[in-house]
Structure formats: structure tokens, C-alpha cells
């Protein structure tokens, strides 16, 4: 509307009567045309008049205050219009205002225009007797068509001949009949044998009832948990509800969903035949001989040897079974009488004792104690034995030429001699383990060190000689052992046990333990079987005749094994672990080579307290009785009989 109004005004103002700009009295029509007036913003003029002269902008633009004053003071303000093209204000005349009002009302602009004049029809509505045009009618309009006749006769012929038939009425309802009238019971499903029929829907339980027993309803907390769970994690896909009567049961809002999900399952879900194991769990337990029939074995804790103040690292029983020696972290070696539990002797050795070993030769009584390896004469029991021991030490005659040795042998004298020290073997490194050979003359010590070949040393006591059997390091040596009967030497590194022939000086066998880290090793007195304890809770039993792989792997301890031991006479072996238990197993080895060893756990012995995550540190059997000693981190030694 607006542009039209301004246009009208523009056309009808050839002679503006009242102009604020008094300077221009004649026609000042702008000739710039229909262009945005912003283009002249930066110029002093606003366009050109008919003569091509510049039309200048008023010197002072009206600001808001002027506008306001004008609005307040000028009575014609309401009928004043700003003309952008000339930058002048124009006062509308009465006629112009009238015209604007009429247009706003939607009336015609001309006052004199009559919009309700009677209309005159072009054609009359009355039927006239004469045609409008004078053209005569065609002949074809009153003669039957020959072409149509031909077509009709063709159709008639086709119908007569039965070529055209009426359209069959459509069947809307499906027709059912006896589909399986000639069924072949032997026909497998047309496709193949891989068909997996879809499982049926699960049948509802009590909790789905509209009025379930009260225990099936969820409590408040359970309901909250249910609501917060993901839809897939929920055990029940719906909330059990109780309704007092059938009338009160609402529609199940997820009904269509569930049906749809079933449809999806039927055609989208990959199917697979799953073999479900249906076994009686009792059948899985192996049938073992009853422990009662395998007696004797230690069953009860009978004695506790107290006296040490720190962990007891190692224990060893005398070959007669009368004495027990123990080495502890409190820098002492203690000698105990087995039957009474009395501490007979305490020796300060000036260092943590890692390993003790009683000489297996019953005629001599020497105890090898670690740190720098000490050979002690405990001076216990039979005087003859004591003196023969001392004689063995003193009977040494130094050879003619001194050979360079890895360790230095020193004879103890004075107060130390009185205390029982006889020989001191100063090793270059810390010694972890000492082992006696079965005859009691040879002694081996282990100094675990990955980098050097000086890890294992074999000492001969009678000749005070030391040799290093290995030229090369094969890994960190954990423990070593002598074969009880033959000249073999067992070396356990972190994962393997190597068996060396000492006479031929060669490697005979390498056993794979399948453990991560061997902690201890024991050899069956027969010499053909070996057990290895490891820090990864396993105990491996090797049958050396059978294979280099474990014959049996026992995982009966919960924590790292620290010590294993065989009994010398009885078919027993024991293992101690960090879980504070000693497990005694029956390990029968048959002379018949065809029969494999029988291993039956017979007793779990508990007694040691776990201190600093350490339980049992060492186990050893009594040489003659079916008794087992165990030393623990709780500074006690316990005897189980």
C-alpha cells in the first residue's frame, strides 16, 4: 500500500502549497529515478532536478528533538509526509487524505465510481428459435457410424466365439483346503539338515501374575534398581504388579513391542546349535583312594617350637631324627630337640640365615649355614659322633700347591671354635642355598646372579676344595640338588630344571616346568621323580622316565609355594605356601615302569599365621617318622604328626 500512496502523492504534487523549505517554490522533481537514496548519504545533494541542477539537502537535518517539537507544536503533523527523494516534508491536502482513507477501507479511489451498476448479459438466457450460426448440420451426425458398427460386430463375434469372457469376480477371502492330504512323514524339511528351529517363547512364571504372591513383588529399593538399570541388563523385562481384582488390570503397554521383538528374533537373530553339558557335578570329581587307607601321614599339629624372633627361613632335621636346626632372619641358628621342643643351642651368626642343611652322613655332624657358609659342629648327642666330626675337620692336610679358589676356606679358632664354628667359607656374593650331597662330603652353594657364571659352587669338605662346575650362566639359578644315588646334579633356573651328569660333565635333560618362576625343588629318594614348587601357585611332578614335561600339575595352593619336600621312606610329599597351609600328599612311585605314580592329597595342615603376606617358608620331613616340620613367617616352627 505504502509505495502506492507515495507514488500518488508524487504525481499529484506539481505545485506544493506548503513547503518547509521555503527556498524552492517551483517543481523540484528529482530525476535520479528509483534508486536507494542511501547512495546520496555522503553527498551534499540528493539528486538532480529537471534542469540537471543538484538538489541540495537541507542544511540541517531534523533530529529527534526537532521531530518531537514538531509533533507537539505543528497541528498538521499528522498529515505531513517526508519525501525521501526531495528530502522535503509535504503536507497532504484534504483530498489526498480522503483518498488515503478510502483506499485503507478497500474502496475505489474515485469517489464517483459506482460499483453496483446492473450487468448486461452477452447471451440471453432465453432459448431462441433460430441458431446463432447459419452452418448446416453434418451428415455423420444423423447417419449411424460404419466404423463403430464394425467394431461392435467384431466384439459380438469375439463374445460369441468365447474369446472374450466376463471378468472373474475377485476372491477376497483366501481358500483353505487340506494342504497335508498327501503328507510324506519321511520328508525332511525341504532345505537341509542345518535347520535350527526357533526356540519357543518362555512360559510365564509366578511374578508375571496379575495377583502374584507377595514375595514376588519388588521392594522399593529393588524397584529403584530396576528402573535405573538398562533395559538389557534387567532380569525381568517388566515390573511385577499386584491388582486387587481382574477389573483393575490395565492394558500392557509394551505388548506390541514384545510381539515385534519376537518377530525380529525370528527372522534376524542368528541361530546356533549350542551343546549344553548336562553332567552331574559329582561325576566330575575324580575317584581317589580314601586318605584313610593311605595312612600313615601327619594329621595333627603336635609341637610348636618357639624362640625365633623373626621369620624362620629354613629348617633341617638331623639324619637320626633327634635334632632340628633352623635358621632365621634374626641372625641366629637354633638347634632344637625334636621330641621335647626344647631349644638346645642358639648361635649368633651375624647375618640373616637363608639356608641351613644338616649333613646326611650320620657319623658326622656338620651343619652348613649360610651368609658366608659356616660349617658348624653342634656338639649335640653322641660324643663319638662329635669327636669324629672334629676329627674329620682336623684330619685335613693342605696340598702341596695352593690352587686359586673361588672361596676362601678358614678354620675357626678360639671362642668361635667353642661356639661350634669349624670352617668358614667366604663367598664373593650372598649365598641363597646350601645343599649336601647324600654321602656328606660334598656341599653345594647357590649365589643367584644372572650376569655371571659364578652362581653354583661345589665344595669338598675333606679336601677343602671348591670348584665352579659351570662355565656359562643359563639364567638365574633358584636352587640346586644332588641326585640321591647317582652322580647327577639338578639345577633349577627360573623356568627350567637342568640335569647334569657330573662324571661325563654334560647336560642330560632339561625339564620344562610350565611355571613362571620356580621357588623350590625336591627329589624323590628313588631319584626318578622330582617335584617343583613355583611362585605361581603350582606344584609340578616330573617323572623323569616319562617325559620332560610335568606328569601332573597340582594347583591346590591358593598362593605362592615356598617349600616342597619328599619323605625319605614313606610315599609322602609336602608343600608349604604363602596361604599358611601345608598340604601333604600321598605320592606313590611304583617299581613297575608301566604304572604311573599315584598322587593323592591326603591332608591340609593349617597352623601358621600369615604375617606380611608370608605363610609357610620351608617344610621338611622327619627322616624316619611320618612327621612334617614347617617353618613360618610367624617365627615358629611346627611339627605335625
Amino acid at each position: 500500500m505504502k509505495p502506492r500512496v507515495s507514488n500518488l502523492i508524487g504525481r499529484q504534487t506539481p505545485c506544493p502549497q506548503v513547503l518547509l523549505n521555503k527556498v524552492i517554490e517551483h517543481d523540484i522533481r528529482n530525476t535520479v529515478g528509483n534508486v536507494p537514496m542511501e547512495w546520496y548519504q555522503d553527498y551534499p545533494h540528493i539528486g538532480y532536478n529537471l534542469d540537471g541542477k543538484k538538489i541540495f539537502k537541507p542544511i540541517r537535518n531534523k533530529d529527534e528533538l526537532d521531530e518531537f517539537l514538531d509533533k507537539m507544536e505543528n497541528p498538521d503533523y499528522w498529515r505531513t509526509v517526508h519525501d525521501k527523494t526531495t528530502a522535503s516534508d509535504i503536507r497532504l491536502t484534504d483530498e489526498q487524505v480522503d483518498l488515503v482513507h478510502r483506499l485503507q477501507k478497500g474502496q475505489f479511489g474515485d469517489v464517483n465510481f459506482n460499483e453496483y451498476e446492473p450487468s448486461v448479459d452477452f447471451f440471453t438466457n432465453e432459448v431462441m428459435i433460430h441458431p446463432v450460426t447459419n452452418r448446416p448440420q453434418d451428415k455423420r451426425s444423423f447417419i449411424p457410424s460404419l466404423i463403430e458398427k464394425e467394431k461392435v460386430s467384431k466384439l459380438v463375434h469375439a463374445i460369441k466365439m468365447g474369446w472374450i469372457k466376463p471378468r472373474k469376480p475377485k476372491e477376497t477371502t483366501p481358500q483353505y483346503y487340506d494342504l497335508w492330504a498327501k503328507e510324506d512323514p519321511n520328508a525332511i524339511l525341504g532345505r537341509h539338515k542345518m535347520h535350527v528351529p526357533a526356540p519357543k517363547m518362555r512360559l510365564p512364571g509366578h511374578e508375571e501374575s496379575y495377583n502374584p504372591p507377595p514375595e514376588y513383588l519388588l521392594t522399593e529399593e529393588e524397584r529403584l534398581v530396576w528402573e535405573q538399570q538398562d533395559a538389557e541388563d534387567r532380569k525381568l523385562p517388566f515390573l511385577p504388579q499386584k491388582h486387587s481384582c481382574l477389573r483393575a488390570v490395565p492394558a500392557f503397554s509394551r505388548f506390541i513391542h514384545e510381539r515385534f521383538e519376537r518377530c525380529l528374533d525370528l527372522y534376524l537373530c542368528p541361530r546356533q546349535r549350542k551343546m549344553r553339558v548336562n553332567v552331574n557335578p559329582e561325576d566330575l570329581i575324580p575317584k581317589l583312594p580314601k586318605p584313610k587307607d593311605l595312612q600313615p601321614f601327619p594329621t595333627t599339629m603336635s609341637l610348636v617350637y618357639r624362640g625365633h624372633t623373626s621369620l624362620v627361613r629354613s629348617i633341617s632335621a638331623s639324619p637320626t631324627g633327634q635334632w632340628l636346626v633352623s635358621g632365621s632372619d634374626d641372625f641366629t641358628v637354633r638347634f632344637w630337640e625334636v621330641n621335647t621342643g626344647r631349644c638346645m643351642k642358639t648361635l649368633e651368626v651375624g647375618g640373616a640365615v637363608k639356608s641351613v642343611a644338616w649333613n646326611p652322613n650320620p657319623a658326622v655332624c656338620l651343619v652348613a649355614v649360610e651368609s658366608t657358609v659356616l660349617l658348624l659342629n653342634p656338639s649335640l648327642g653322641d660324643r663319638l659322633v662329635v669327636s669324629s666330626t672334629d676329627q674329620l675337620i682336623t684330619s685335613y692336610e693342605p696340598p702341596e700347591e695352593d690352587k686359586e679358589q673361588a672361596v676362601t676356606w678358614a678354620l675357626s679358632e678360639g671362642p668361635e671354635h667353642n661356639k661350634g664354628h669349624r670352617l668358614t667359607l667366604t663367598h664373593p656374593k650372598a649365598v641363597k642355598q646350601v645343599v649336601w650331597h647324600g654321602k656328606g662330603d660334598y656341599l653345594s652353594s647357590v649365589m643367584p646372579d644372572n650376569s655371571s657364571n659364578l652362581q653354583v659352587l661345589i665344595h669338598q669338605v675333606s679336601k677343602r676344595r671348591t670348584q665352579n662346575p659351570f662355565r656359562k650362566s643359563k639364567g638365574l639359578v633358584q636352587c640346586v640338588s644332588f641326585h640321591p644315588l647317582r652322580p647327577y646334579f639338578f639345577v633349577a633356573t627360573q623356568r627350567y630344571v637342568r640335569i647334569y651328569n657330573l662324571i661325563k660333565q654334560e647336560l642330560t635333560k632339561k625339564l620344562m616346568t610350565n611355571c613362571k618362576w620356580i621357588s623350590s625343588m625336591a627329589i624323590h629318594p628313588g631319584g626318578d621323580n622330582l617335584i617343583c614348587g613355583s611362585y605361581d601357585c603350582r606344584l609340578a611332578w616330573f617323572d623323569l622316565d616319562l617325559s620332560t614335561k610335568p606328569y601332573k600339575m597340582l594347583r591346590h595352593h591358593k598362593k605362592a609355594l615356598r617349600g616342597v619336600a619328599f619323605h625319605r621312606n614313606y610315599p609322602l610329599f609336602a608343600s608349604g605356601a604363602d596361604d599358611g597351609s601345608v598340604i601333604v600328599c600321598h605320592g606313590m612311585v611304583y617299581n613297575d615302569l608301566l604304572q604311573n605314580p599315584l598322587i593323592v592329597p591326603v591332608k591340609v595342615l593349617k597352623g601358621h599365621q600369615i604375617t606380611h603376606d608370608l605363610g609357610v617358608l620351608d617344610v621338611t620331613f622327619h627322616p624316619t617318622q611320618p612327621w612334617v616340620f614347617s617353618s613360618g613367617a610367624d617365627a615358629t616352627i611346627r611339627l605335625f604328626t
Partner: protein
Amino acid sequence: MGGLQKKKYERGSATNYITRNKARKKLQLSLADFRRLCILKGIYPHEPKHKKKVNKGSTAPRTFYLLKDIRFLLHEPIVRKFREYKVFVRKLRKAYGKAEWTGVERLRDNKPGYKLDHIIKERYPTFIDALRDIDDALSMCFLFSTFARTGKCHVQTITLCRRLTVEWMNYVVASRSLQKVFISIKGIYYQADVLGQLITWLVPYQFAHDHPTDVDYRVMATFTEMYTTLFGFINFRLYQTLNLVYPPKLDSKAESELKAEHEEDYAMDSESYLEKLSALSASLARVVATAEEEENQLDQFPADGEDIENMEAREKEQKEQEDQNRLFEGLKFFLNREVPRESLAFILRCFGAEVSWDKSLCIGGTYDVTDETITHQIVDRPDIDKQYINRYYIQPQWVFDSVNAKMCLPVEDYFLGVTLPPHLSPFVEEKDGDYVPPEKLKLMALQRGEKHVQEEEEEEDEDEDDDDDEEEDNDEEDEDLTEEKNLKKMEDQRSQGKTLAVKVTPGKVKPWETGSVGNKVRLEQEEKAEEKRLAIMMMKKKEKYLYDKIMFGKKRTTREANKLAAKRKAHEDTSKAEKKQKKAKKK
């Protein structure tokens, strides 16, 4: 070593499977058509044993179809029909675009259609196969038959589903094969034994559905298309086995009865007929008109040893079955207007009862409320104004519970306004170790023929506890009571209570608490336990794993059972305390 080098993934399981996209390309079908084809033909993806091998070394999640399945689809004649339909749609769209209305009409008339008969025959070579797979079809058809005719699917489909379900219900009524029913919060479950197959279906409650937006109705419609075809053929066959006319017709006698009234209310004859059928109040017409068919007696075969036992067991079972089928025979029910008419009429008719309902509720009611011979009226409102003296007014749960218990339960627990006993699922079969709700135990005792004496005694005991406390009060109250009968009863109770209160039962000596014998037993047990523990230590890793798994599962079930039992006990304690409080308040 000569010969060509073997290439990976060119033999073995990698060649037996095909991914979905490849299958689609091989069949030259759009995804929608492929889906439709899979649904109709019953082709589903398989989970290969070695997924990575099949996936050619990749571990991306893919669905695999058996290549044989897809090859089998290649020869399906219906694929051509799909293509024809595609062409038809294209032509129709073109005709619409050009505004050729005659062309549109002509095309519409020649709309290509297809039949699924051969697919059904192929998927289910024998009738029993088909019957075994009908569970889903039934549930789906029952769902579709409750849809409003508002355009979620074709109206024809809805009417067809309705027709088929009505036929099915009529068959179940005629064959008396319904076994179990269960009112769940989802709907009502039914289980029928049809020709030796247990068939379970779920019927939603009669409410309007609010249609979810995240459900693809095209998938459901395709399934329904297949299911209706299957269902129709099965119905036909089932009707044939019972010598019934298919499509079902009402007995001529019943028809004439029904014809007299209501004839003018229905616009369409076919519709009214379906309504009459769905009323389930009349028996169906038979092909060979016979008097009520006698049940076939099992022939006696000479048998020996175990066979005899088997035979006896079977005979017993059959007898039980027959007894169950005659459960409501001779009873006359009337359904009030607020109970779900269709399901109740269906169940009652299945067990030989006579049913009727208000005339304004549905067509087919045969007698009125005022009938004096009605034995049970099923009501689901707290109270009713006008009560007849010679009939029981019971809540609908009685019917369901009685069917599941295979006996008419005592009606007292189901009277008007009474708090109903819990409704248990008949589908749960408790193994030993599972939790059995006490209601079920009670029910089992009832079935064995023991009256629920125990429970009564319990209640009495409860009462007595209260009575003993306030005996004197009771004495005073007794005088207030006017009715002689009541007084007598109470006194009886009280005297009983007194005798019970002073009764001393001789104590029994527990065997393991006495001296050496008990110690021995306990020692032996301990020894056994230790032996087992030691033997478990010697188990192989694999077996140990399996054993631990089994034991874990067992422990979980017992834990759950214990939890339920504890919950129940807590509930009972609280309810008892409430009861006592109420009593105290009353006094």
C-alpha cells in the same frame, strides 16, 4: 613340494556362509523384498562356529546366511511375483501422474497377487510340524484381531485374523483340549493340548492399543500374512479331524434359536454370523450328524512287565484328563457385564459348563440373570445389589484357579469383596531346590485329597493366642452376643484352645547330641567332606572350571530361593502384626 599354493578363505567354512548384502545382491532384491522373502520362507541367519574364519579374517560384526539357504531362495517362484508387483506399482504411479483414471482402474483390477500355500507345504512337510510351530501364529493373530480398523494394517487382515481366531477357539471348545490358563499382567495365557502338542498362546486384554512409533508394522504384517495362511490350513485340518464343517457352522438347533432375536440389529449377514460364532455359546455343526461322540476307549493289548505299568500310567493320565475336561459339567454360569466375557465364556465352555450373559452385552446369551437354575454368577465388583440365594457369587479368578488345579476349588476364598488368594502360574514346575510358594504347597495338598486342616489350625492357634490374653473380656462379650450358635462355636473354640495350651509333647532326643554315636556320625560326615575337598583339589583344570560353574549356578538358585523365602516371611510377620493391632484396636 609341488602343486599350487593354497589360498586362504577359498574352502571350508568361509565358503559356506554369505553375508546379507552379498545375498541380497545375488538375489537382486531390495532390502525390503529380501526381508519379506526371508520371513515368508523362514530363512534366518546362522552364527558360524569360527566367526573370524568366515569373515575372512575380519572381526567386524556381520550377520551370515548359509549359502545353501540363499541358493534355495534363488528358485523361489514368489520372487518373480515380487518383481511383478514392483512393476505394477511403477505403472500405477505413472498412470496417476498422467491422470489416466481408466488406466488406473484397469491396473487396479489386474493387481498381481501371490499365494503362500506352496511355501507352507514346503516349510512344514507334515501337519504335526505345522502344529508345533503355531504358537507365534496364534499370539500374532490374536493381537491383530484386537487392532482397531484405523489403518495400521489392512482391514481384511484384521477381519481374517478375527475369523481365524474365532475358528480356533471354537475348535478348542469342541475338542475340549484346553489345559491351563493364566492371567498375567500382559494378557491371558492359554495352553491347549492339540493332538499331543502343547500349544501356548497369549491374548491381550480388550483395550485399545496405543500404537508405538518405533515398531515396523510392515514386518509384523508380513509375518501375519504367512501366519494367517498357515493358521487357516491348520484350522481346516483340525476341523476335519473332528468331523466339523469348515468354515464353521452353528448347529441347526442353535442357529434357529439365535435367529429369532437380534436379526435386525446387524447390517451384514456375514458379520452377524461371525459374531454368533465368537459368542461361543452354541456347538458347531458336524459333517456326519452323530449323537454326542463317545470317547474312544483305549484298546486293551496283552502286555507284560513294564508295559503294563506304562499302560496303567497312561490310562490313569487319560482318566485324569477326562475328569479335567468334565470339570464344570452340569454347572450353569452367568457372566456379569464387567468380566471379560470372551475369555471366560471360552474357558467355561471348554470344560463343559453352560454360560450366558446379559443380552445387551453380546449376542448369544441363552438365559437371563433371573434364571433360578444358575449355580455360579461371576462378578467382578465389590458388591451387588440383588443377590439370589441359590447361587454362588464369585470372582473370575476362581475359574482360572480351578482349571489350573484340575478341580473345583472351595468358593469361599473367591466370594465378593474378599481379598483374593495369589494367582499362581501353572507353567512353573519346581525342581528340588527351587522356591515353592506356600500357596502352591497348599494347593498340592488339596489335590492330594487332604483338606486344608493345617491352615485352619494355624488360624485357630492365632486366635487362641489372643483369646488367652483376654479371656475375661471374652466372657463379658459372650453375654452380649445374642446368637446361640455363635456363642457355642466360640466356646468350643475356647475349650479346644485350653486343652491345646496345657498339652505337653514328649521331647525327642536328638541323635547327634548323645555321646559317642553322635560324634561318630559327625566325624564321618566331616571326613566325607574333607575327602571331597581333597578330591576337588585333584581335578583337572577344565573339569574344575565346569564344576565351579555348575556349583555357582546351584548356589545362585538357592540364594534366590532363600531370598524369596525371607521376603515371604517378612511379609507374613508384618501382616500378622497388623492384624493383631487391628484386633487390639477393635477391643
